[in-house]
C-alpha cells in the first residue's frame, strides 16, 4: 500500500435549491456525502454498485445513481433529492399518488422511484405504461411487483 496524502476537498453545491459549502473526502460517493456529510438520509443505499436505483438523485435535470458519482463531482451542480419534492403547499402529485395507490410497502425504494418518476414526468407529461416500465427499469422494488407503482405514476400524469 503506497503512501498517499489524501486531503478533504471543499466544494460548493446546491441541494434542493439551497446553496452550500461542504468538505468531502475525494474518494467518497455523492451518496455517502449526502447521507453522512450533509445529513440527508432520504436517499437510500441498496447495492452501492448502480444496480438498484435506491440512491437515485437528480443532477442538473438528469437522474443518476448517486453511489456512482463522487461527492467532489457535485461542485457547481444543482442536485435534487426526495427531500426536495414536497413544497410548503404540500406533496408533489407523485408523492400523493404513491400514497393513494398504495405504491409502497416497505418504502425503502420509494425515494428512488419518486425521483426517477419525477424526471420522467418533467419531460414527458403523458408516458405510456410501457414507457413508465422502461424508465423505471433501473429502480428495483422487491415488495410491490411494480403494479401499483406504475399505476401511481400514471395517475400522477393524468
Amino acid at each position: 500500500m503506497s503512501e498517499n496524502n489524501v486531503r478533504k476537498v471543499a466544494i460548493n453545491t446546491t441541494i434542493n435549491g439551497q446553496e452550500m459549502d461542504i468538505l468531502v473526502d475525494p474518494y467518497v460517493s455523492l451518496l455517502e456525502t449526502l447521507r453522512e456529510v450533509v445529513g440527508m438520509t432520504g436517499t437510500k443505499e441498496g447495492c452501492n454498485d448502480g444496480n438498484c436505483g435506491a440512491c437515485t438523485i437528480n443532477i442538473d435535470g438528469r437522474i443518476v445513481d448517486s453511489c456512482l458519482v463522487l461527492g467532489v463531482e457535485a461542485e457547481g451542480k444543482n442536485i435534487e433529492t426526495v427531500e426536495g419534492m414536497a413544497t410548503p403547499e404540500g406533496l408533489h402529485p407523485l408523492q400523493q399518488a404513491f400514497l393513494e395507490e398504495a405504491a409502497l410497502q416497505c418504502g425503502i425504494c420509494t425515494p428512488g422511484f419518486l425521483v426517477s418518476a419525477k424526471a420522467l414526468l418533467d419531460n414527458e407529461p403523458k408516458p405510456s405504461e410501457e414507457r413508465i416500465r422502461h424508465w423505471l427499469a433501473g429502480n428495483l422494488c422487491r415488495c410491490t411487483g411494480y403494479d401499483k407503482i406504475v399505476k401511481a405514476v400514471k395517475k400522477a400524469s393524468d
Partner: protein
Amino acid sequence: MVSKAKKSDYKVIGTRPIRHDGYDKVTGRAQYGADIKLPGMIYGAVLRSPHAHAKIKNIDISKAENMNGVFAVMTAKDLPRLTDKQRGNSEESGSEKHLSENVMAFDKVLYKGHVVAAVSANDVNTAREAIKEIIVDYEVLKPVINVDQAMDKDAPILHEDFIGDHLGKKVKNTNIATYNRYKIGDADDAFKKCDLVVEKEVELQTVHQGYIEPHSGTAIWDEDDRVKVWTSTQGSFSNRDSVSKVLNLDVSRVKVTPMEIGGGFGGKIPVYLEPIAAVLSKKSRRPVQLVMSRTDVFDASGPAPGGKVIVKIGVDKNGKMLAGYADIRLEAGGYPEAFIEAAAKCVFSCYDIPSMDIEAYDVLVNKPSSAPYRAPGSPQVAFATETVVDEICKKLDMDLIDFRLLNVAEKGTRTALGPKYRKIGLKEVLEAAKKSDHWNSKLEKKSVNGKVRGRGIASGYWFNIGEKSAVNLSLNMDGTVILTEGSTDIGGSRASIAMQAAEVLGINAESVRPSVVDTDSIGHTDVTGGSRTTYATGYAAYKAAHMLIDEITSKAAKIWDISEGDIIYKDGILSSRTDSELNMTLREFADRNPFGPVVSSASVDLEEAAGGFGTHIVDLEIDPETGKTDVIRYTVLQDVGKAIHPSYVEGQLQGGATQGIGWALNEEYFMSDDGKMLNSSYLDYRMPIALDLPMIETVLVEVPSEDHPFGVRGVGETPICPPVPAISNAVNDAIGTRILSTPIKASKILNTLKSM
C-alpha cells in the same frame, strides 16, 4: 382490481385510507436501519471468511489494533460460549450455541462470508481498511454445497460435535440435522389400489429474500451494562431475545428500538450485526454502527433453502386421490433449520388425501444459515405437488380446475400432520378461478413474432400463526386515539391494525394514530412473520378498543350520573337509552372527562389460525430461438378471509407472486465448486424489474376466518407458493416438456427444445 368481497356493514374495514406512516415514507423522512445517527457514533466493519468450510487455527489482530483511527477489534473470544440449549419458538429455533456461532465463528467457518472478526473505527473506510490487516490462519476443508453431497456417506461433516435427530435416534457425524416422517393411513397399501400413480422429482437452487435494505446494527453498551440497539428487524422482541442470548445478558438489560424496515420476507428475523455492534461499543465506549454491503447480504444472510423434493400421488380412475408420498430434502445451510416441518405440512395441504406418507430431511450444507423466506418450505414442495397434479390431469384428460375441485381440501379434511382443517376457502378460490376472465379468455398458442405461448395454473397454501401481541390505546383530548404496538411495519400493518381499532370505536382510520414502539414501551410482541400481524396484533387492537369503550362508558356514566347500562356508545357518540337529552361526541366526552386519562391495554397469545389458500394463473411467451421467457398475463386468486385494507392485501398478492416469478425464471445462488456464490450482486442475481412484468391481476376471495372477530386471515406468504409450479406448468403447456429444476432459465429451455 375486482374485489369479490360481499357488501358489508363495516365502516372502516374494507376501505382504502392513506397509511399513517405514508407521509414520512414518500418524503424521505422515515428512518431505516442505517439512517440513525447517534452523537459520537463510530463505524464498524467485519472480516468474513473467504472459504466455505475451514477450521480457524489462529487470528492475529495486532496490526489492525494499532492502525490510526481504529477504536477496537473483536473476535469470538469476546463472546460467551453458549450451550446447545434449544431456543424459544420456531422463528428463533435452533440452539443458543448455533445462534452465537452464526453471528461470529469460534473455531470453524461453515460458509463463505461467515464473520470471523470485527473492527470499529472513526469512519467506514478506515474500518474496512483495518479488517484487511487482520491475519487469519485457516485450515481449508472440502465443502458440501447441496443435499446430495451432504448426505453422501463419505461427506465432510460440518459439525463434529453435533448430534442429529433421525426419527428420535441420536446420530453423530451426520450432516442430516433432522430426519422426520409423517404418516396418515397406510400409503403403501393405498398406492396398490390406485389406477394411476404419477411421481415427479424437482430440484431447486438456493434463492434469496432480496429485500432492498441491507442488514444493519447500531448499538450502545452503557457503563451500567445496559445495551441499546437500533435495528431494522421483523421482531424487536425476538431481536432483543437473540441479542441478549448471544451476549449472555438478561433480556431486561437489552432495549431494541425498531427502525423502519426496508423489506424482510423472513430474512430480517435472524440477528447478524447487532451483537457485534454491542461488543464493539463496549470496547470503544462509543455508539457503533455496522451496515452490510449487498454482497455481504447475499453471501451471509438469508437465504431460502434449495434442495430436492419427490412427490408421488395415486388416484382412482375417476381422479379421486387415494395416496400421497413425499420425500423432502432441504438445505439448512451451515446451521440446522430448513423448515421441513412446514414443508411436510404444506406438501399435500391443498388436497383431501386419505393416506399420506412424508419423509423430510433437514440437511446441513456449506451455505449461509437459511432464514425464513415467505412461507418457508412451501414453494419448494408446491413445485413438486402441483407438477404431479398437472401431469395427472393431462393423463386423465381432466380439466385442471375440476380435478382440483374433486380433491379439494375443506373444513374437516385431515391434514398431513394430523389435525383437521377448520373453515378454509380453497374451494371458493378454485370456483372463482373457474369464473375468472383470465381462465375464460382463450390463449393463442402462437404469437405473430413466432413466439410460443403457454398457460399454467397452480395452487398453494400457508397457515397463519398466532402468538403474542400487545396493544395500548389512549384517548386524546380531541377525541382521537393513540395506538402503540410492537409489530414492526413492513408493508402497511400500522394501517391494518389501526383500522381494526377504528372499526370498533366507530371513528375513522385517521383518528387512530398508530406507532411502533421499542421493547421497553409495549408488551412482548412476536415477529412480523408467519402471516400473523394483522391477525394477532389486530386482534389485540380489537380487544383494546372494546376495553377503551368500557372505560369511556363507565366514565361517561359518572359524568351523567346514570348507570353504565343506560349508556349507548355508537359511531363515536355517547347517548342515553333513557334520556334523549343526553348526547355527546367522543371529542366532547374527552374534553369534559374529569376522571383521569382514558387508556386501555390488551394482549393476546393466539393459537394458529386456519390459513390462506391461493391459486395462480399465468400466461407466458417463449422465444424458441433464444429460450427467453416473458410473463404476458398473471392472475392471483386468494382466500384473504377479510381484507382490512384491500390495497395492501392486493400488494401482498402482487409482491409475493413477483418474487415467485423471479424464483421460477432467473433467481439462483450460482455456486463455484468450492462453495462460493459467484453472482452475489443485483446485476447477476436477477430479480424481476418493472419491464419484466405485466400488471398482476388480483381477485380477493373472502371466506372469513373463524378465528378472528373480523374474519382476518394471514395473506402475506401464500402468494409465493404457486408461481414456480404455475410457470413450470405453463412452460410445459408451451413447449410440451417439463423443466423440473429452478431457475427455468433460457439455456435450459433452449437445450430442451433442441433435444426434442
